């Protein structure tokens, strides 16, 4: 569904990603692990048209989308869910969700998607008139995911969806990701090593210092001594 070849990203003159190649097939959940500050977020943002300076190629459903801005890629069904949520603080939950359906391709499905999102997150339905700034961390996280789904996304790029959540909420997030995926949405997510999330992966990648240092299945990852060392300290 999405194929990335030799992606390089820069912030001004700072070279963040170095020749990253990655492939996600339709219906998969692909997880990219890696230590903090090694370029995971930059990678997702590059895929979603949120980084200006990129080279290499990103193709989505056979179309080249390298360098297209988010205005265009969101419209094609690619949506980024930010690690720090990036909600609209002085708007209600409902307004945040409606803005999630801003893109032209999402507008006809706004009502339908709103119902889906509310059935997935009953808490948000109960709090739809509340301002986003008054929500707890966990609720805000759910709202960010829900807003992403409102774009009628077919490909969801999630940036550390369990960051800062307590263990029971992490399990909840993992359940929701699974549910989203079983509804036909392809998921690419980056995480530090969170067992509940990693368990969902059809395929794993590890990003270190801007390069892919591992690619393979979960079983292969378990047999890799280097990975054990960085994530488990063994």
């Amino acid at each position: 569904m999405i194929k990335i070849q030799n992606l390089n990203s820069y912030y001004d003159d700072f070279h963040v990603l170095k020749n990253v190649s990655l492939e996600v097939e339709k219906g998969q959940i692909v997880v990219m692990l890696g230590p903090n500050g090694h370029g995971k977020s930059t990678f997702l943002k590059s895929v979603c048209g949120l980084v200006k300076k990129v080279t290499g190629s990103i193709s989505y459903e056979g179309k080249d989308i390298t360098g297209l801005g988010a205005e265009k890629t969101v419209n094609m069904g690619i949506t980024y869910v930010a690690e720090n949520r990036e909600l609209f603080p002085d708007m209600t939950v409902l307004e945040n969700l409606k803005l999630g359906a801003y893109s032209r391709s999402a507008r006809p499905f706004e009502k339908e998607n709103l119902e889906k999102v509310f059935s997935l997150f009953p808490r948000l339905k109960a709090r739809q008139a509340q301002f986003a700034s008054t929500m707890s961390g966990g609720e805000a996280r759910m709202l960010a995911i829900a807003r992403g789904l409102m774009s009628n996304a077919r490909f969801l790029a999630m940036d550390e969806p369990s960051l800062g959540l307590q263990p029971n909420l992490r399990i909840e997030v993992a359940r929701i990701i699974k549910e989203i995926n079983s509804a036909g949405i392809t998921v690419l997510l980056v995480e530090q090593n969170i067992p509940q999330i990693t368990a969902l992966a059809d395929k794993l990648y590890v990003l270190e210092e801007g390069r892919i240092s591992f690619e393979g299945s979960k079983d292969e990852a378990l047999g890799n001594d280097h990975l054990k060392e960085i994530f488990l300290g063994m």
Partner: protein
Amino acid sequence: MLTEIIDVIISGMINGSVYALMAVGLTLIYGVSKAFNFAYGSFYSMGGYLAFLVFGFAFLHNYLIVFCLAAPILFFFGYIIEKLLVAPLRKRDDWEVKVMMITLGMALFLDNSFQVVFGARMKSLPSILEGSFEAGEFILSYQDVVIFILSISGILTFRWFLNNTRTGMSVRAVAQNPAGAQIVGIPKEFVFSATFAISTVMVGMGGILLAQKYFVTPDGGWDILVKSWVITAFGGMGSIKGSLYAAFIVGMLEAFVGWQFGMTWTLIALFAVLLTTLVIRPQGLMGKRG
């Protein structure tokens, strides 16, 4: 005495309502794009001159026609100015300062163009509605009533636009969180141009409303620029609600100071109140800290 006080309050309310219409536009540009528009006052004069031009044609002697013609012209003008002068600067370092300088240059250019085209003499416009309501010593001109009603409806329309239309919501989204707006696919550049254009319409409308009460002059916009900035800073940079309150406070203050001490004291009083407020509350009445 009592009728005098009522007169002063009414005059404060009427000026306050027009100030509100204009200051809200300026606050909006700042809130959305963090740009300072120093040509704002000249856009005000432009409204007045547009109305004057329309009245130059005998068969167009109607304020309805003036508004219907001026609104799209002002919108288009604001949109083009943003696209041509402000947007290209946004990609550069220190663009805020460069935007201030280029809009300041724009203001001087416009004011001098007005002088070349229309001459330095004051132009007056016919009153929008003749006659007045009288009860004993108390006189309220219909013109003032219409100005008040039109300003308030302008503000309400604007509020409706922000809360209920997709474009309006995207304007608020960019103001509250530009990164979030980008994520949901809102075209920021379009929103910047559209807000600039809308604010041009608002100040231009204010120009038309006040032109029939005062006069149109080439440099008449500076007073409005200063007052709009005072109101914007007083209410809290970027806070629309704050600007609304501040506009009425400024209108009232002007009216009372003018009545008690004479019009020459109004600007001094205005700045004294602004400075005192900013010392106590640096973020203004309703602005956010930081």
